[in-house]
């Protein structure tokens, strides 16, 4: 009982401080601005890399289209990428020293997909205290069909990305997604992971035009 009284008596001055602050500076202030950049029809041209596979690194070029319903939600209606594979030293060593057949390495050749975008964060950054750049951060959830060396396999992808606006027409975006490829087709028996890192240029039509 005594302890409770002691705690309460110690806490009481805190509430007084809060009241004093409210009395001295009542009210709150916000900067209310028109959103400087808004997207509607987005055509994006990107390049990317598939990093996870130890036997090859995939470099790809991607084209996509996204429709932005509002400032928070968008649907990346479609995207398609063609992959160029660069073999790693490990694979060459296996083929050369251990006579592993080239057909036993499953490589992504191209992929197409679609995603939903949720864009909860929009903000601005001060660059060297001289410029202000606007940007947003978003979450991606979608599905992708991968064409491997000898089969088509579907995957579910989750990821995120960020965008820096250059002007009302152009923006740069960086997406990182993790694709969980389902074990269907081509004799696959286990899930596979394909991580994509994509750097692109978004060209916007509509919105703040």
């Amino acid at each position, binding site marked *: 009982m005594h302890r409770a009284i002691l705690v309460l008596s110690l806490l009481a001055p805190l509430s007084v401080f809060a009241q004093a602050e409210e*009395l*001295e*500076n*009542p*009210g*709150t*202030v*916000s*900067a*209310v*601005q*028109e*959103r400087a950049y*808004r997207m509607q029809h987005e055509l994006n041209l990107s390049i990317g890399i598939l990093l996870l596979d130890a036997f090859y690194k995939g470099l790809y070029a991607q084209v996509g289209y996204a429709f932005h319903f*509002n*400032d928070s939600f968008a649907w990346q209606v479609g995207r398609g990428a063609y992959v160029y594979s660069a073999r790693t030293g490990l694979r060459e060593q296996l083929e050369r020293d251990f006579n592993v057949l080239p057909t036993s390495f499953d490589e992504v050749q191209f992929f197409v997909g679609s995603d939903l975008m949720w864009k909860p964060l*929009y903000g*601005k950054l*001060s660059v060297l205290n*001289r*410029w*202000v750049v606007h940007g947003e951060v978003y979450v991606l959830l979608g599905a992708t069909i991968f064409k491997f060396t000898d089969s088509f396999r579907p995957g579910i992808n989750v990821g995120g990305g960020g965008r820096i606006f250059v002007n009302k027409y152009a923006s740069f975006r960086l997406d990182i997604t993790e694709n969980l490829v389902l074990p269907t087709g081509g004799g696959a028996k286990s899930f596979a992971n394909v991580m994509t890192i994509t750097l692109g240029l978004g060209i916007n039509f509509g919105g703040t035009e």
Partner: protein
Amino acid sequence: MRWALLLGLAASLTATAQGKTADPVTGDAATKAPAAAPPDGGMAAAAASSTAGAGASAAPVAAPAPAAKKVDPKLFDQALNDFFSNRPKDAAPKLFEYTENLPSTDENYAWAQFFLAKSLIDLKLRHAAAVYLARIARERTNPAVLPKALEELQRLTDLPHDEVMIDEQVFGALDLGFLPEEVAGYAHYQQGLVDLRVGNERWATTHFSKLPETSPEASRAKYAMLVTRLKAAKKDLPKEMIEQFFELGKDPKLTLEARNDALMAVARLRYEAQDFTAALEAYSLVQLPSLAPGRASLYLEEAWTRYQLGQIHAAMGILTTLDAPSFREEFLPDKYLLKALIYRDLCHYLPAKRAAKELTRRYAESLDAIREREDLTKDARLLRAAAARGSTKRGRKYLESLEFEGEQLGRYAGSFGDRMFGYMTRLYDLSRAEAVRVYDDRLHEAVRVEADKLLRAAEQVRVMEYEVGLKLYERIKKGSKLVTLIEEEPLGPHQIAFKFTDEYWNDELRTYRFSLKSRCIEETAR
């Protein structure tokens, strides 16, 4: 006038005669090629002509120097060579020696003055350069140099400069018949301004009417004319004057600052006419460069306008802007008064009282200085406020530039030589003394104006404190209800809100919105 005409004719005749023999600009009669071809064609001709004709007329005449010495005519060529080889530090003393030891009738005398001025501009000694350029304009020894000298002078007027020497004594007194169009336009504008200053609107109109309608000077002249008429008008401003200011506010020939001044004038006139909505519209048309903090007066006036329109939350938001570091040194006694009024209107009496007291607390020293009848120019706040506006500001900037250039001069003590350095030091000392005198004159008047402003605000604050004191202890009648809350405007679908946490971003300064619920009961509501 007749003498001026005769002198003008004589000058033009001399020009014709000299043009036939060796015109340093066109190089018509220049027979010898310059030793080193300078990059500028016209200037190259000057070098060529000097080689051709300097030898014959290099007789020394009485100069300010104690004993004028004979100057080698090649000195001018060497100086030009230095100048065109981007060595103004070497060119300047040679040109100085040339001008000091040769008579003003020497063919290259004016050119030497001109290149000396150009060298001094390159050395950032702009005032000394202006003195030489003004001398060319006054002496008019070579009509070919004159337009070039005037163009340089006009360029120098974009920076803090000696207004009496350049604007009044050169451009304000020029014979305008022989000048190229651009310089003549500027001279007409300056002469019109001089006439306006002495209250001769008719003569000013004559000068202004000669300005091409598409020139920036024509727009600036309209603005000057309107401001003069505005000052002269006692009551009942003609409505068309507001429209004329409004037109100037959209005139692309004017600088952004001048357009903003015109729009501010529109807003103030509309405010005076109690057309607050239209005033607010004019304030909103004031454009600021990207990420520029803007002017404190703009924000404060907009806040008053919004207050008059009943937009007290928006007005308070703008007052938040005025607390930004960019405006912390501004002299804005009204700000505290308006803040107190807004809190009072929302029935937050203690904050209202505190805001009102903030004025007397913040400006206590200045108010004491006024009451004690001390020298107000010694009060830091009043001094800063007075020196931040109008002609006092220009005077201060000119004085600062003289002091800066005077310091710069010390760097050339070795390369200029004793005679030139001594001459330049005297020139800067005299100019500085005159600039201090002019600045002090303007400052005394400006400080008095600011002190009046402070006293008026302090008086209003006392009334406010009294009113708030009464409200604080007012009894609430039985059955009184809180007034319906003023609905704050909700966020639009394309708007975004950044909660303010004492960090000012320049791009947000015009967008702050204040939120505070009214505590008024029905009978005390505004």
